[in-house]
């Protein structure tokens, strides 16, 4: 784990009977970044988050959070961590303010923190209502207020946009971005919606069946979205080598054909290199990939 890591997992696994929920996962979340942990339902996102928080114990490997190894009896580090796991929950008979006051006492935050969290999450009108009567969206706001109340350095949020309306989603996005830029907070968030995190995250880790399939900078993802040239050839490996030698910086094999990035202006040159080497060219077409199809391709759901 480097000193810049907020979260580092080393070959962490979790097995339930025969089912492997998380499989030798290596994560390295840098301080100050927004890292989105992206995967379908059941991919292992929540299980991973539970292990980061010490709610469940890994079957193998280990977890470090803010430089401290997470394990039974480790508590101090959680004064610097705010979290939300799966559904937002609160004591239904207690008011919003009382629920937050419990969090304040348990984290040792100052009294003013409760009012601050209420204001930050725009819970003012509901502050003295019982949590049990809140709508789903306001319950989510209360859970986020609880996570933020003690001004943590690291936020671990499981599907933070759950139950929020579109305006609420934008608001949370802005809030997380400002916490990162103004307070240097690190955000680790899970989601199953790529479009949601592509607007917010610095890096995205794609997880499926408990394995980390790919980690990608959002900038790079955007470049992919910009476009590539799809090249069908009889000898993909040889063709890829020739194209690389010809100065095409990014050539990737994909399902029996090649994707050549940043090359839309150089289509004739691609044809020349391939045909000149005696390789059969079966397809040559500019294409672009939207974020969703990229995600589906990486997780193996579509070709």
């Amino acid at each position, binding site marked *: 784990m480097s000193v810049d890591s907020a979260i580092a997992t080393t070959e962490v696994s979790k097995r339930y009977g025969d089912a492997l929920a998380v499989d030798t996962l290596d994560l390295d979340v840098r301080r100050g970044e927004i890292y989105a942990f992206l995967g379908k339902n059941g991919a292992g996102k929540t299980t991973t988050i539970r292990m980061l928080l010490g709610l469940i114990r890994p079957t193998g490997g280990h977890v470090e959070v803010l430089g401290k190894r997470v394990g039974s009896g480790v508590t101090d580090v959680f004064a610097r961590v705010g979290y939300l796991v799966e559904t937002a929950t609160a004591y239904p008979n207690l008011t919003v303010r009382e629920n937050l006051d419990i969090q304040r006492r*348990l984290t040792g935050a100052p009294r003013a923190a409760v009012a601050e969290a209420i204001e930050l999450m725009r819970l003012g009108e509901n502050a003295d209502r019982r949590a049990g009567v809140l709508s789903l969206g306001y319950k989510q706001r209360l859970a986020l207020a609880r996570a933020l109340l003690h001004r943590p350095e690291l936020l671990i949020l499981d599907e933070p946009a759950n139950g929020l309306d579109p305006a609420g989603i934008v608001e949370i996005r802005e809030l997380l971005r400002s916490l990162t830029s103004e307070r240097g907070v690190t955000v680790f968030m899970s989601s199953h919606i790529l479009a949601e995190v592509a607007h917010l995250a610095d890096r995205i880790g794609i997880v499926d069946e408990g394995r980390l399939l790919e980690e990608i900078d959002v900038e790079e993802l955007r470049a992919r979205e910009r476009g590539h040239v799809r090249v069908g050839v009889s000898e993909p490996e040889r063709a890829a080598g020739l194209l690389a030698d010809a100065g095409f910086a990014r050539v990737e094999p994909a399902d029996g054909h090649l994707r050549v990035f940043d090359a839309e202006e150089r289509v004739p040159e691609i044809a020349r290199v391939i045909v000149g080497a005696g390789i059969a060219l079966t397809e040559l077409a500019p294409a672009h990939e939207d974020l969703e199809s990229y995600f589906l391709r990486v997780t193996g759901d579509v070709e």
Partner: protein
Amino acid sequence: MFAQVLATELLKLRRSKVTWFSLIALSLGPLGIALFMWIVREPARAAQLGLLGTKANLAGLEATWPSYFSMLTLVVGIGGMLMLAFIVAFVFGREYADGTAKNLLALPVGRMWFVLAKLVVAAVWWFALVVVVLVEALAIGRVVGLPGFSPGLALGGAGDALMAAGVAYLLAPVVAWITTLGRGYLPPLGFALAMLALGNVFAKTGWALWFPWSIVPLSIGMVGQPVQTLPLGSFVVVALTFLAGIVATVLQMRYADNTQ
């Protein structure tokens, strides 16, 4: 830190409706006993009201203060074992029922403190109930006009009831452990009923002195000897049950996976 955890647990207790329901439930105890006393004293009037059928079950019962107190001890001891299971199941189980257990587990607070604070809250709730019921019982006994009252008798009766309440409380941590193990209300309540039944079975065998759930009925004189003649070993068994329950609950909270 323990003081802060305790403050949060007391707030949860204060805001709960269940607290007040339990008071109503246990308050029915002295009312019921007083009704029996009245039936014994006034069989003719009870018959007029259609209550005579109950008289068959009341053979041997005297409408006096000593008899009233011994029945009260029974209610607090045996009823208390069930009521305490209910209280502990609620105090621990609500975190699973409301889905809030996960919110307590990644905090700068050792999980042991939650177990201890909840057990203290259960004790505060339980003994507050017992005291309220004792005061109510005294008032009802006066209204019914039972003979044979003396301050010494009242103190002795209250002492026996508190003793029974205390012994019953020593079994509560095991129920807490079952609650954290089963993550809900039903397992501890089922467990308490099963133990009560087993305690009754063992009370009729030679093992009664060594089985914790038989020791409570024994200690209040419901079966066999009254409390004074129980061997020290029985108290050691109950004390060990108390400690084992706390340790098991702390270990469960500390090491078990929470997949809520």
